[in-house]
């Protein structure tokens, strides 16, 4: 009797396992109540949904998606008598989760998601988006989430997604992912296919997943498996190494572009007039504040175009800071050309003044910037190498600045004048060049370049009155190392310093990297004071 009972029970279980399609539809009341429950209940609801998600009808998924979205965005209100979805956090009325009826929202609890809960909710929303997303973009966003948590997602979900997917490219991706998910499948052929699939999209995580399989009994017993795994691992390791190499290059380029932007204006000012402009960092800061001003103007007058404020800020920041530079030159520096060390003190005073002026008038807090899509986030390019848009923006900006500045210096009358004055001031004056006017314009150009650096830095660094002070030593080192008066030298020096920093940092830490690079420059300059690119001149 007991035997029979046990057999029956086992049969039932088997049936339950084998035919999940007959699982009950979502218990909406319980699901809603769980989302309003404690952390454990929330996890239960979200993970339960993930487990059965492959078999739930579409309207259940949509319903759950709405609730989960509201929970993640804190629009879920939990009064004593049910669950409400609000239009926005703290709205006075909301839709009842079950009936959809609109009713006033009493003061009630809006659950805060813990990290576990948030992860579970994210996964659940991911599979819902993958299965029911209205367009390929939404479904592919869902797929991205699912991919990250592939270990917690049952195969049924991927199978269903693959079967129902209409977009060919997306379908192929899902198929690959489903294959890769079968790493621990009992079927050796599927396993090998899974290894190949994992190896096809290499990353540090993939490497770790494959490496873990080396401890698998099959590795020792099954030569085919062993060969597949070794090949897959080698492929992933190579790809990860290349990706890391690309990341180093990219990091170096990005740091170099920042250094170059900060130093380019200085190179012109120092090269032309021998003036050590200690206010250059503050000019960068002013450029960033000008960008902020443009953003606020857009917000007020053209909110629809707000995303383009960074582009519009380029001429504004250049012009505004160039104007400040010209004013400083006219009022102060032109009296000091024969006394470079005094102009150093004067620009220090100007920097002190500017920092405190901004501090008193605008405040010390970090400025709030809207980050349009083209400067926020990033895209994984190869293995673990992620291209971040803000850094790419800075690199592109630096390249554009370099090209335009070189064009100005090489192809325009002003550029010719500037080069003439840089090379031999007295001779240029004898030839009738208006050196006074050229000085002023060149100083304006150098300051304007600092303003541009301010624009480029907005998406990368925090903008506050003190932001400029950190640049001064680095950018002077870059200018002097490159050779005074040589913009190309400045570029090469920036690349060298940026690259060296990025290479040394993983080995000896960020502090030591900075110290080593600076000491190296000091030693180099003591052997070769004229820098890398300066032409040897008659003393």
């Amino acid at each position: 009797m007991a035997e029979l009972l046990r057999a029956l029970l086992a049969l039932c279980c088997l049936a339950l396992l084998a035919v999940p399609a007959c699982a009950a539809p979502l218990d909406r009341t319980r699901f809603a109540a769980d989302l309003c429950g404690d952390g454990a209940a929330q996890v239960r609801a979200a993970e339960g949904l993930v487990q059965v998600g492959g078999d739930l009808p579409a309207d259940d998924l949509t319903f759950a998606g709405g609730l989960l979205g509201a929970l993640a965005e804190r629009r879920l209100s939990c009064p004593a008598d049910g669950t409400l979805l609000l239009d926005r956090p703290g709205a006075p009325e909301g839709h009842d989760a079950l009936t959809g009826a609109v009713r006033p929202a009493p003061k009630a609890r809006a659950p805060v998601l813990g990290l576990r809960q948030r992860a579970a909710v994210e996964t659940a929303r991911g599979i819902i988006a993958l299965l029911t997303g209205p367009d390929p973009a939404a479904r592919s966003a869902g797929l991205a989430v699912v991919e990250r948590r592939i270990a917690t997602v049952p195969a049924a979900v991927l199978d269903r997604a693959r079967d129902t997917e209409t977009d060919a490219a997306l379908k192929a991706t899902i198929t690959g992912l489903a294959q890769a998910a079968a790493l621990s499948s009992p079927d050796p052929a599927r396993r090998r296919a899974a290894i190949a699939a994992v190896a096809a999209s290499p990353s540090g995580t993939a490497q770790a997943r494959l490496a873990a399989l080396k401890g698998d009994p099959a590795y020792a017993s099954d030569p085919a498996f062993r060969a597949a795994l070794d090949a897959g691992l080698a492929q992933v390791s190579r790809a990860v190494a290349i990706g890391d190499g690309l990341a180093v290059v990219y990091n170096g380029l990005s740091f170099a572009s920042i250094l170059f932007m900060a130093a380019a204006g200085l190179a012109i000012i120092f090269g032309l007039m021998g003036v050590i402009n200690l206010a250059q960092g503050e000019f960068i800061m002013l450029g960033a504040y000008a960008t902020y001003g443009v953003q606020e103007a857009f917000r007020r007058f053209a909110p629809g175009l707000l995303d383009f404020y960074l582009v519009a800020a380029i001429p504004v920041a250049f012009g505004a800071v160039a104007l400040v530079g010209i004013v400083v030159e006219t009022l102060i520096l032109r009296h000091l050309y024969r006394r470079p060390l005094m102009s150093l003190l004067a620009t220090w005073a100007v920097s002190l003044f500017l920092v405190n002026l901004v501090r008193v008038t605008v405040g010390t807090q970090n400025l709030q910037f809207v980050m349009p899509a083209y400067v926020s986030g990033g895209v994984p390019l190869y293995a673990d190498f992620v291209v971040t848009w803000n850094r790419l923006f800075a690199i592109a900006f630096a390249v554009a600045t370099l090209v335009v500045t070189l064009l100005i210096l090489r192809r325009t009358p002003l550029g010719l004048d500037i080069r003439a004055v840089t090379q031999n001031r007295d001779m240029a004056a004898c030839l009738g060049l208006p050196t006074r006017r050229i000085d002023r314009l060149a100083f304006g150009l150098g300051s304007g370049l600092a303003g541009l650096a301010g624009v480029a830095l907005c998406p990368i660094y925090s903008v506050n009155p003190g932001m400029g002070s950190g640049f001064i030593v680095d950018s002077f080192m870059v200018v002097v190392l490159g050779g005074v008066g040589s913009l190309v030298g400045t570029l090469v020096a920036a690349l060298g310093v940026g690259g060296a920093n990025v290479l040394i940092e993983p080995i000896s830490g960020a502090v030591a990297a900075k110290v080593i690079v600076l000491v190296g420059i000091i030693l180099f300059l003591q052997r070769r004071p004229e820098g890398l690119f300066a032409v040897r001149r008659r003393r």
Partner: protein
Amino acid sequence: MTVLTRRSFVGTAALLAAPALIRPAAAADTVKLGCLFSSSGTMANLEGRLNHVVRMAADAINGRGGVNGRQIEVVTSDPASDWPLYAQIGRQMLQQEKVAALFGCWTSVSRKSVLPVVEQNDGLLFYPLHFEGDENSKNVVYVNSPPASSVLPAVDYLMGPDGVGAKRFFMIGSDYVWPRTINKQLKGYWTSKGIPETAWREEYVPFGFSNFQTLVNQVRSFASQPGGQPIVVLTVVGSSIPDFLREFANQGISATDVPILGLDMVEADLEGLDTGKLVGHLNCWAYLQAAKGERNQKFLADWAAYVKAKNVPFSADTVIDPMVSAYDSVNLWALAAAKAGSFAVPEVRKAFAGLSFDDPSGYTLTMTGENNYVSRGVFIGSVNEKRGFDVLWQSPNAPAPVPFSPYG
């Protein structure tokens, strides 16, 4: 020429003596409190707020009739984020202004700089910041929590089932004693729990460091190693915090992949960030703006009104822990002075034992005769979309402070 030099000397002497002349001598019915918070230099954005909070607290007490029948007069200064200047001004305030207590310092080094001054002059310094602990001077009131009573509960939470079950730890800090002490204590704590040394990594960056690309790459590759859920324990300070968060989000790592526990992260650090991609990262303080309760609502309303009325150059709707701690400091001092019936430091110090104050966080602060530390609650906050923190967890009560960590 000697006449001229004499004149210039007289001028210099007059300058030195001038502080005594430019201020009206204290009226008999006031008592002075001194502030040592910078309104310029690197610390301005953080410390600057505290000057105003101290004033606000003193105004409120004055509105209730003052302390021991005297009105409070707040003396402010600007040590300009220049550490020796804190000591210099502190000395001047104690000796010349005869302030009854000092409220000041944010960084450990500024406190260390003022410490000998208050000890030599037997003054009283209320220090509103959390810090590395391992110090107990009878002349300093440590209003905020040492790590053993605030950081360890938070890390415990993250390691537990309610948190993320954290198994591996990437510690990134600014290179100075507070981050290093915290990390040292954490390592001791983990060792005591049997966690192997391979489960953590430690990196330090210079002050004001902002180029976090390489470090974030390292975090990512650390996270992809097997061994369990990783978290980042972030003890960088100042502008490094937003710069790190920005790079972290831009490289596409979310809080559900690798959560950051930012131990020095406050609302002010999120100013200027798009926090949509940072939702879920954590911080840990003795007060969060989102704390529930009438007292907090009143405090927030008071601050907003004060900012408006006095044209204070800081945000009316951002309140951070050290502001509340500074507010608590003034009130604790006033309670102690009233209990002692005197402004003399030894009397006030004696009155600390058994003092309690219901502060905006919702907890009741208490002090014992054992040390100059204050019992505070512990909040764990979670970054939300609105550049603030939601309360994720808070301690059931205010744990007794542990000045000297057992894990150091």
